[in-house]
């Protein structure tokens, strides 16, 4: 079973705010996205090079969710971020 990792694309500027939320600015499309606390936790883990299973571990340690639910949530966010060209799979 693969354990994918992703990297943010270089044209993204991420702002981490003190309540855990964050904002991503896409300099190519000139759009910005607000991320809630859990999404920003996943984004921070992506920035740190964490794999899907490591991100799921962080989510289960932070929130009361099962590992399956954490993986599903992270995969959903990966798809949304990839669709908007905010990150790519790590090579």
């Amino acid at each position, binding site marked *: 079973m693969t354990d994918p990792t992703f990297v943010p694309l270089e044209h993204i500027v991420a702002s981490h705010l003190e*309540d855990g939320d964050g*904002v991503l600015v896409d300099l190519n499309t*000139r759009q910005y996205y607000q991320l809630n606390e859990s999404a920003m936790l996943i984004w921070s883990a992506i920035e740190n090079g964490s794999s899907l299973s490591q991100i799921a571990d962080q989510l289960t340690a932070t929130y009361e969710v099962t590992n399956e639910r954490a993986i599903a949530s992270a995969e959903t966010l990966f798809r949304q971020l990839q669709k908007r060209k905010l990150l790519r799979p790590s090579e």
Partner: protein
Amino acid sequence: MLEDLCFRASARTPWGSTEPSTSKGIRHYSVADRTLCFQSVDELLDLVHDFLSGYYFTPANSSDLRNQPVHLIEIHRSEPPAFPFENSGFAIEDGYCYSDHEQIVLLVNGSTIAVSAPALNRTDVWLSDTTANRHTLALNNVILYAVQAALRRGGMYQFHAGCVLAPDATRGMLLVGDSGCGKSTLTAVLIRNGWRFVSDDNLLLRDTPAGILAWALRRYFTFAKSALDECELRQFPDAIGPRVPGDRDKVRFYARRAFPESFVETCMPEVILFPAIGTEPQTRIEPVKPGDALARLLRQCPWAICDTATAPDHVRALANLIKQTRSYSVITGRDVFDEPFSIPGLISQRIND
């Protein structure tokens, strides 16, 4: 294919003359510890001087600028060159912008502004020669775009916001919102109640090691004529200036003439208010989450996203501003005018809860 990747800007003949002058002068102006150097013929430098006199730019002596980075803005009367770009560009207010990761080229009111890569500290302006585009309002707009871009490359970000300080406060309160949201009126109500002011609508933000600082940029306020009555400002006739060009309902108001002891050149903000005009009797003040507040700031600062060379630092500065402040929305009620003396207390009480 080369034609597809290039555009040639609209100015075709020298501005105001068929004999371009080769004698160019230089004038320096400083604001908030940054210096801009303008190079052009005297008549255009006079135009720049008149424009900058409405802002807190002060003429600087070149001999006083040792070791200071200076951004050169050269204003040409010749035809602009062709600029190759791979991107199709995007519309901006009054014009169009082409951008790559280092430089931007703006077509504004028929004129062309090329802002070079930050390391070059250089902006070139080719003024349009058409009658409409030589109108003072249009030329001032072009100069403003060039100045703002030059300042961004020096880490100074123009920001449409008011800034006031409570009577005993050492830190400031920003009032942020679209034109017509009540920034100037609320600023006037607060100043009439003893608050001090930096500006009603035009600031520079600077990211420093100590935090984000707000500096006064424009010397005058702009008020709807009705606001002069509502805020009882007509008792200061010396402070009331001419009509705002392009807006027959607004006049300039030189607040320092009316409240000379209340001006503050710069301060560190600790609160952001997002005013909006409501219809209820009472003013409501509600907290705004940091993410929502940053999104609102980004909407107010399109260059934080569009000027790719400065965008990362610009976005970081806005995020740092959010981190050092608390944000609130203020839905002003009729009490702003019915009981104006109660509003400062209401704001102070709510943000200190």
